[in-house]
């Protein structure tokens, strides 16, 4: 990752707020999220279910249906253009060509009544204006690239003739077929067996070297992040709880939630006597989000101020920042 390129991020998200309107009221799923993705970089977005990571990802491509969702404010700049101001037609130009996406469950994310080949080629025909023959050729290449043996015959088959892992490879092939600048992978391995998970991650890892694609990898599994990502955004309660490089986050977590996530992760290098520590309690109610820090009720270090005020992201040196009062100099002074 070169220093120069870092100034020109592929994607820059500022103060993104997304809500859902349901019968109980307005669910503030994403509450002011900031992050960016540098060229060629793999950014991990981590958090438990309901923390807003999937909503964020789908908002980047404007894929969440509205209503019930509503993008309330913020900016998503992709390759220097504002995504949130684009018309549906302009979005269609962007999706599939400059931005690709793969989803959690490969068993349901392919059309069961259409051959795999056609599901790849329709993309190419639409965006690259390829002829059928050229698209067919490219589809075979893509399937080979993601490691599907016998690609020439398999493009004529239907999704049910593929295993889960193979279907996810097909999804990757579809998403990457037009050589996008950004690939959004929304929990791409969650629905797969552990051995298959590793294979899919290997495919992604291999491709990031060969193509000029930045990747946003959304997951609840810190282990996956450690294996493949450059930087991490930890999300909690619709906000960024902590952000930094993988090294920073894993070595010196500055947010108790990140710390909790790491402690609840089984590791080979710790002794067996050291217990895994779960994070107690449940995620915050996003219909009536707390005024203070959202993690307060579950935080082992909670203070009075945490209930009252949200600290905002506090710079912790390097590229690391965390939404926690403990990083405030005044607090450290008092605690010392």
């Amino acid at each position, binding site marked *: 990752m070169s220093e120069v390129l870092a100034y020109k991020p592929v994607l820059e998200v500022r103060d993104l707020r997304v809500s859902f309107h349901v019968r109980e009221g307005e669910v503030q799923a994403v509450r002011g999220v900031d992050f960016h993705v540098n060229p060629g970089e793999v950014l991990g977005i981590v958090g438990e279910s309901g923390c807003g990571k999937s909503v964020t990802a789908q908002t980047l491509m404007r894929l969440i249906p509205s209503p019930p969702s509503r993008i309330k404010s913020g900016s998503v700049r992709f390759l220097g253009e504002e995504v949130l101001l684009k018309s549906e037609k302009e979005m269609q130009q962007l*999706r599939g060509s400059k931005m690709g996406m793969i989803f959690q469950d490969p068993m349901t994310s392919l059309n069961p009544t259409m051959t795999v080949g056609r599901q790849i080629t329709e993309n190419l025909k639409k965006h690259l204006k390829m002829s059928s023959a050229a698209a067919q050729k490219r589809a075979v290449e893509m399937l080979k690239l993601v490691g599907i043996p016998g690609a020439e015959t398999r493009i004529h088959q239907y999704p049910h003739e593929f295993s889960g892992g193979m279907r996810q490879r097909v999804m990757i092939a579809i998403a990457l077929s037009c050589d996008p600048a950004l690939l959004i992978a929304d929990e791409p391995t969650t629905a797969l067996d552990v051995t298959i998970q590793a294979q899919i991650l290997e495919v992604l890892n291999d491709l990031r070297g060969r193509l000029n694609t930045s990747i946003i990898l959304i997951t609840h599994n810190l282990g996956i992040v450690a294996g493949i990502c450059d930087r991490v955004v930890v999300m909690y309660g619709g906000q960024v709880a902590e952000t930094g490089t993988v090294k920073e986050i894993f070595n010196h977590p500055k947010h108790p939630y990140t710390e909790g996530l790491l402690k609840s992760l089984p590791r080979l290098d710790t002794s067996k006597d050291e217990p895994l520590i779960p994070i107690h309690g449940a995620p915050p109610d996003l219909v009536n989000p707390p005024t203070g820090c959202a993690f307060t009720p579950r935080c082992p270090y909670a203070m009075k101020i945490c209930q009252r005020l949200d600290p905002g992201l506090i710079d912790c040196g390097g590229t690391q920042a965390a939404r926690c009062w403990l990083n405030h100099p005044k607090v450290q002074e008092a605690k010392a």
Partner: protein
Amino acid sequence: MVRYITVKLLYMLFTLFILATATFFLMKVIPGNPFLGEKKLPTQIYNNIMEKYGFDQPLYKQYLKYMNNLIHFDLGTSMKSTHLTVNKIIHSSFSNSAKLGIAAIIVSIIAGIGLGIISALYHGKVIDHFTSILAVIGVSIPSFVIGPLLQYFLGVKLGWFHVAGLKGPLDYIMPTITLSALPIAFIARLTRSNMIEVMNAEFIKTAKSKGLAKSFIIYHHALRNAILPVVTYLGPMTANIITGSVVVEAIFGIAGLGKYFIDSVTNRDYTLIMGVTLFYAAILMIMRFCTDVAYVFVDPRIKLSGREGNA
């Protein structure tokens, strides 16, 4: 494929065999026969008739003869109109029923799928509520209510159509509406819920993430998946239309098979009852068979085997 079709065919024949046997013995259980009417026939004539229909034979012989005739597609001679065979009656009357039935099937499929898709695409909007109400009404109001009401309003009050008969093409309109109201409603509800489910499916999101236009997604990705299950309804729909035709032919005074069936029932014309029942059952089973085979072709997920494709 051959094995699948063979097995399906064998089941169909077996079902028909069971039905034929059951109807035969049911008819024999009934005390008396249509010739033992209020007017007592002279013994000699009565015995002649008994001989003609083979009623003087032992039961098993009658059964074997009946089955033998069935295999040769001979449904016997009517007991009321003794100069007519059941085959002739079916032959002469079925064309009217078939024309109406086919018209109703075509209208049902087109209107049902059309309404279903429209209301799914405008899910929750006024037009959706409107079609939903229409569909519930179609399911709930019996054909013998719709028919007379149409006759009263469109036929008598407005004078648009002939109240009865099948002389011109316009005369098909009221019977066809009456006959297809129920299947239209069913197909519309089925298509609507399928379409809504499909539009929420993950693979539609995938298609969106490829940047495909909405109309393209609806046409190429959603429609086929949403309409597929409608194919399975073709069997029950035929049953509905056969049932409906009995009433519709009575209401609109159409000389079709349904009318003969009702006449045969009120006249206790047993050979005709048996013959028409078997004929109806055969049509229905052939429709079901075609549906099963068609489904294999339209849904790539169904793997062919001799057993039921309950995929």
